[in-house]
């Protein structure tokens, strides 16, 4: 959900997303960790420019650093390679696997930063409207998607109640996955019923694909400039 306001947030959502996708493609096309590092700094810069202060940035990214370390360790400790640096039990760390792990972890961090930059600066409704107008998505899917977003807070609330019910009724799982059926089934049946009622309500409001639009996101000059800058940046990184 959108939390930040900045010029970056003003961009057309679909254009903004495509620009970030271009960077992600460029990222998986390279095996060079210096280039990856350049992309990472770009992503961090984008996040800082998008409205987060350095303090917010550190606080919000701490949970992801664990993912970063894990990715690195998985690749480093179980990777292939001949030049063994350290080995213990199942662990077999080679210089190749360390390089590989480092690259993948950096890549993952860049992905996380780029996605966060998108999510924190994009309003869901505007994004979906932009999908309709710029990406020619069918309004049927688009409005269904918007209605679905409204489900999420209710789902969170329902999971909370279901867990409390299990506690109050003294059900204690003996193994993980035990609760899957008793939590998943009511959740599922409720969601289906709710989706059905919602569909009826929207249909009753004469929903049709032939319609006018209250909000029409357009592609402006700044969006073109943004795309050009991204392309220039990518070519520059690969050329140098």
């Amino acid at each position, binding site marked *: 959900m959108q939390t930040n306001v900045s010029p970056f947030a003003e961009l057309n959502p679909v254009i903004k997303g495509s620009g970030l996708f271009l960077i992600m493609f460029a990222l998986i096309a390279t095996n060079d960790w210096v280039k990856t590092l350049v992309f990472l700094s770009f992503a961090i810069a984008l996040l800082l420019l998008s409205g987060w202060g350095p303090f917010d940035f550190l606080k919000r990214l701490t949970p992801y650093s664990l993912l970063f370390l894990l990715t690195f360790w998985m690749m480093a400790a179980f990777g292939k390679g001949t030049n063994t640096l350290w080995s213990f039990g199942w662990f077999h760390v080679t210089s190749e696997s360390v390089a590989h792990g480092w690259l993948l972890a950096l890549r993952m961090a860049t992905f996380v930063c780029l996605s966060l930059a998108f999510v924190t600066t994009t309003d*869901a*409704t505007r994004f979906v409207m932009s999908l309709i107008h710029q990406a020619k998505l069918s309004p049927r899917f688009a*409005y269904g998607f*918007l*209605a679905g*977003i*409204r489900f999420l*807070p*209710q789902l969170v609330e*329902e999971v909370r*109640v*279901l867990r*409390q*019910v*299990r*506690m*109050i*009724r*003294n*059900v*204690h799982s003996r193994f993980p996955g035990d609760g899957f059926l*008793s939590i998943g*089934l*009511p959740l599922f*049946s*409720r969601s289906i019923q*709710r989706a059905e*009622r*919602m*569909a*009826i*309500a*929207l*249909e*009753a*409001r*004469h*929903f*049709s694909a*032939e*319609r*006018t*639009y*209250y*909000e*029409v996101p357009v592609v402006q000059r700044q969006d073109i400039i943004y795309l050009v800058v991204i392309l220039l940046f990518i070519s520059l990184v690969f050329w140098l």
Partner: protein
Amino acid sequence: MITVDDLSIRYPGQIKSVLDHVSLSIEHGTTLLLGRSGSGKTTLLHALAGLTPETIEVEQTGTVTRSGSVGVLFQNPEEQFCMETIGREIAFSLENRSIPRVEMDERIERLLALVGLPLPFSTPIASLSGGMKQRLALAAVLALEPTILLLDEPTAQIDPIGQHELMALIFRIQKEHDLTIVLIEHQLDVCLPYVDQVVLLEDGSITATADPRDLFPQDYKELQTKGIAVPSLYPYTLETLPIDGPQAARLQVPSAVATAGSSLLHVAALSTKAPYPLTDATFSMQTGEWVMLLGANGSGKSTLLATLGRLLPNRGTYQLQGRPVHRYSRRRFYEHVGYVFQQPDLQFLKLTVEAEIDWSHRAATNVKRAALLERLELTSVKQQSPLALSTGQQRRLSVATMLGQTKDLLLLDEPTFGQDGLTTRRLMEQLQMEQQNGTTLVMATHDMELVARYADRVLVMEQGRIAFDGRPSELFADVPLLERCQLQRPLSYQFQEVKRDANERVPVR
């Protein structure tokens, strides 16, 4: 306006028709569809709206002809929205009608003013109260400029103050815009003064079409025994109600028997951390006491219940049977304490009704469990999944599952919310039986009639604090407090007061 000719509707996979050869003519004015739950009211309303047989897939014969466009307002405001802000939500209706963009802002503003929500367009829907949400949903329906308005229990999911406001609003708009209204509604005293025609449905057939001024005085007792909703006062007022009639009998409240139990729980200076509002609650409760929690939305009723149920971290003293609760293990604590949530369908763990009862009443004998099922009228559905039951049945089962043999305290969060009169009465009977067995009941509610009829004691919450702790009759006498906390005096209490005044006016010879 609408003519229904020999309409039959059957849901796929069911043997029995929901509507069976129904013919009906709806004229200008207001028509009320009346019947028990499951009588086919909602299906008929959907058919009138033209939602069957396509949007809602059913097997349908017969015809429905309409002269005019239709708008439908549903029960649950949450399930009618697809946008995040109020402006966009109304715009969605306008978009569907292909209204040009340049006209939209002005129309949205006019509609918001019409339903009394003069808020900025960017106001998030999530920040509105239940009553406000339903008014927004009404605005979104009116944006379609219908000439026929169909209402499916529009006030069932909102609190009493909001109910009166919404009904008054709907009928004011009807007058201004000359709308034809067909509605389903359980709050009969609120809507009947506006109703021109009552259509009575029983088991999928129309058994009566009558003017409400004739129907209720005549068939009151008969309707009541059939379990069909009846008004408390209509067509009379408190002053003109015949004292020996069936309606007056319904307003007689048995005087509460004072319970003299032993002390069960003691709470002192109990508080929760923000954003939960509870501050400095201090009270004790006896065994076998029925305590009701009252207060406006957000005043802290649910927070107090959750704190008593150890679902929220808290500060202060909380003792159960003389022992601090933190010295009970969770398992031991919930052997003594039960909790009934607002959503009954989230409270089931097993795949069949029977298994639910077996699990929650493990200690009881088979005979006792069978008797319990019988008492709850669930024997015929005992092999079904709890999720497949009707809401009323789910409510009864959800309360039953929380009543093991050893429960001393039962916490209930608005268990009658959105239920019809019959379900409410059954639930209350069930709870009363538990109370007689010595269980202490603490129940949050908005329904003042229940307070008058069942409560031994009332706690009124105001901004997280306990503003009143005492007997219901003391509360009803404290008019300033009632007004401050948006509470209404129950009809039964008002009726007794009127009678008392009348007696005093009789000259003494």
